[in-house]
């Protein structure tokens, strides 16, 4: 352990700035200041797309699920595809904040705040879909196991949808706690800079009287470590449980034991891609070039290609298992996926998720922001199509050919998907305006001055030393 810490200390600094106060200046600059024109354009665009989505959802709830393109054979399509897509996006946040923290990946400090915020917003978008996909969403509270006057009526603990409900609410709660605890020192910094008023009072309240003493820092580091330990199983468990929505069914194409690892790898894959998408935009628009460097993009790209490889392996394994099972229904589903009426979706998925990330083998591509951005967009699209392929192609031609049917989305479904993207970016842009996008207190632990960087000796902030010393011993 000591050697590893020493190695980490010898590592070239991830962020090079002139002084610790420069970090505070750079990160806090957008907070409280006047938003840029670019921000306004993005915000209004996101808000109007959200408005369109809200109108579509309102119309659908008022009229019926029939406003979607579903039918007697395909009972889920865009709704659950969007749900799994957004839940998957959320996974990178927990991975970066919890697992990479425990593994002492010091580069995470530049992206963890935004990634955790992204997680929260993605889980909010995801949580929308199980609600609105119900035929009678106003009865959604029946999913709660609450005491009631309906005799012994209770929820069905055998149903994966109930497991989902608990998994996602746990995930959202822990992610929110983790994000908030990590925010406390930064909120205190913003509080100290704020002028007296409501904002300052709110910040005082939310920063819980943080005073930066050694005792406070030590308690904080321990809580953060414990929360990281608590959140780590969630990285694996949430998408495992989401995959059980499909894996525990009897439908060929869904009924597969490979689903939990396949879904978890896919979730981290899509989440890292979305982090890259957001961070490359934030870097350019918020002048964060010093904090999100090409090296950061490089390591995240490596994670993308690693998880992309796992996903590609899962695609191949699915076909092999179908062949090896000698089960004609299973074999048909996979042939139908690759060559049937939805083959365009399948090959979009393969092109975006398997072929496009191969470019990231090359260091030059990994360090080229435009190229990485393009790959990340491809992966985002591909991962949406992965869930669409799994859900729709398995359902539309299952056991009895008499019931085979096709599916095409209606404008309402497309608007709902767009609306969820609008919700995500609206939340993210508001976040960028009011909360430090980069964890200042953590970044200060990995900085080096340009001169110190040359000698490979990063300057470490004094306030973090006692806590780190306590844990690393």
């Amino acid at each position, binding site marked *: 352990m000591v050697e590893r810490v020493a190695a980490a200390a010898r590592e070239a600094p991830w962020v090079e700035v002139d002084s610790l106060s420069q970090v505070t200046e750079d990160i806090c600059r957008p907070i409280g200041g006047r938003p840029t024109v670019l921000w306004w354009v993005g915000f209004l665009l996101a808000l109007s797309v959200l408005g369109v989505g809200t109108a579509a959802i309102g119309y659908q709830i008022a*009229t*019926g*699920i*029939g406003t979607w*393109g*579903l*039918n*007697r*054979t395909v*009972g*889920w399509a865009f709704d659950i595809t969007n749900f799994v897509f957004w839940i998957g996006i959320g996974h990178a946040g927990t991975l970066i904040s919890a697992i990479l923290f425990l593994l002492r990946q010091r580069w995470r400090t530049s992206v963890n705040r935004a990634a955790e915020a992204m997680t929260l917003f993605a889980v909010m978008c995801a949580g929308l879909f*199980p609600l609105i*996909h*119900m*035929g*009678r*969403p106003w*009865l*959604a509270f*029946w*999913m709660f196991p609450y005491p009631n006057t309906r005799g012994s*009526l*209770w*929820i*069905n603990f*055998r*149903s*994966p*949808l*109930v497991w989902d*409900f608990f998994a996602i609410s746990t995930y959202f709660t822990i992610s929110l706690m983790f994000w908030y605890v990590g925010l406390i020192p930064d909120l205190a910094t913003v509080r100290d800079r704020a002028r007296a008023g409501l904002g300052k009072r709110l910040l005082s309240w939310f920063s819980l009287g943080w005073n930066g003493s050694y005792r406070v820092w030590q308690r904080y580091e321990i809580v953060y470590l414990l929360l990281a330990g608590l959140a780590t199983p969630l990285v694996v468990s949430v998408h495992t449980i989401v995959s059980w*929505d499909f894996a*525990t*069914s*009897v*439908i060929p194409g869904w009924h597969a034991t490979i689903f939990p690892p396949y879904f978890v790898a896919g979730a981290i894959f899509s989440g890292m891609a979305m982090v890259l998408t957001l961070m490359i935009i934030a870097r350019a628009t918020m002048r964060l070039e010093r904090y999100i460097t090409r090296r950061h993009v490089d390591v995240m790209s490596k994670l993308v290609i690693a998880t992309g490889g796992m996903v590609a392996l899962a695609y191949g394994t699915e076909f092999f298992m179908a062949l090896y099972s000698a089960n*004609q*229904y299973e*074999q*048909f589903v996979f*042939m*139908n996926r690759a*060559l*049937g*009426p939805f083959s365009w979706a399948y090959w979009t998925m393969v092109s975006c998720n398997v072929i496009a990330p191969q470019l990231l083998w090359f260091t030059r591509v990994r360090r080229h922001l435009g190229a990485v951005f393009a790959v990340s967009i491809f992966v985002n699209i591909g991962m949406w199509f992965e869930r669409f392929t799994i859900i729709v192609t398995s*359902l539309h*031609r*299952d*056991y*009895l*050919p*008499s*019931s*085979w*049917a*096709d599916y095409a989305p209606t404008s309402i479904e497309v608007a709902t998907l767009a609306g969820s993207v609008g919700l995500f970016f609206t939340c993210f842009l508001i976040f960028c305006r009011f909360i430090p996008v980069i964890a200042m207190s953590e970044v200060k632990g990995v900085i080096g001055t340009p001169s110190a960087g040359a000698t490979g000796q990063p300057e470490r902030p004094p306030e973090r030393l006692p806590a780190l010393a306590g844990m690393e011993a």
Partner: protein
Amino acid sequence: MPEHRVDGGDELTDQIQEGPLRGWVRVDRQGPSHPFQEGLELRDPIWKPIGERLERTWGWIEERAQGRRGTACLVEQLEPPVGDHGGQSASKRGGIDAQPATEGDGPVGVSVAPFLELTEGTMRYTTRVVTIAAAGRTRPLAATQRHHAITASPRLGLAATVARPIVRETTVAALAAEGASRDRSGHEPIRPDLWPDDHPYAHRWGLVIDLNACTGCSACVIACQAENNIPVVGRDEVRRAREMHWMRIDRYFSDTGDGSVDVVHQPMLCQHCAHAPCETVCPVLATVHSAEGLNEQVYNRCVGTRYCANNCPYKVRRFNWFTYRHDDVRANLVLNPDVTVRSRGVMEKCSLCVQRVQEAKAEARRLGEPLRDGDITTACEQSCPARAIVFGDLADASSRATKLAAGGRHFRVLEELNVRPGVGYLSVVRHRPAQGDDKRHG
């Protein structure tokens, strides 16, 4: 079942049948003029004048042979053969005339009553020689099943062309050979099972359907629709594959071995599985198992996740996509007061006419007599002219259904999934002289 002959490829002797949602012309499979055998692909509706007076009477629409719209024959527009019925006009002949369409796509369903003729004391459909001509336009079909596609596209590889063991067929010779030697009592395969048999059934209601007797006439479908207040959703919703039938007639083809195909009709309804996949996945316990073996849907509790329908291997569950119209007070008088009218957003499916089961039980209790086999008839059983459907208590060794289920022809669809359906089928028996069936006559 009457056959209809393709004569010379452009003249037909027709019989009209109208199902609940479609009308169609049936064409027999004789000779090379069978359009599917010829690979004939008709892209236009074809209008066939009937007799000398009417033109553009029948329409055929075929989109792509394997395409998403399927292929079928459809009654496009029907004009009554005026004068054939003693001057009676169509409107005087009853209240089943076509409703005018609200969209510009032509009439939604057409009355075929004017084509009925009184012949030898019974009403018969008109039999005429017609010719076929293209009308030059197409429209998507409202059909509940892909028509005329004998297999899935061979492009999808071997798995698509291998016949699925959904319907079992045997020959007279094979059946005779098995005959008495085959003891099927206790033929329930024993499969390892994670679930306890926690249903000590007082009754185990089930159906046995004889596929050999079924002609696919669809009387059961209509009886079920009438009995259970099932909404009629109209052409556009059928095009979106949202028909609400609790019971449907599945049609499959099988290869006869001599270049032709045989057709099998399989009435398909909720199989009332003992280990129902739908029951485990419902988050709010809106579909549960009764102590009498019924898979029951609790409309009041349903929140409409549709997970049950997705997980149903038989795809028999029906979702209320909209609030279907029940605002016509007079039309509502035909509703069955014993059956709930479902609201928007809930799932529904065959209940095995649970209202009839309850009624018969109450009556038996009132009379102080035990419930006898045959006291309960489901609507489909009652209406089946071939008596192909038998309802009964599978826990009662002396019931007709149990005896049929113990016979050599009995099978369950997708039995390998181990969902243990309460609905069973009797296999189709074919007469195949080439395979030794002529011994029967000897």
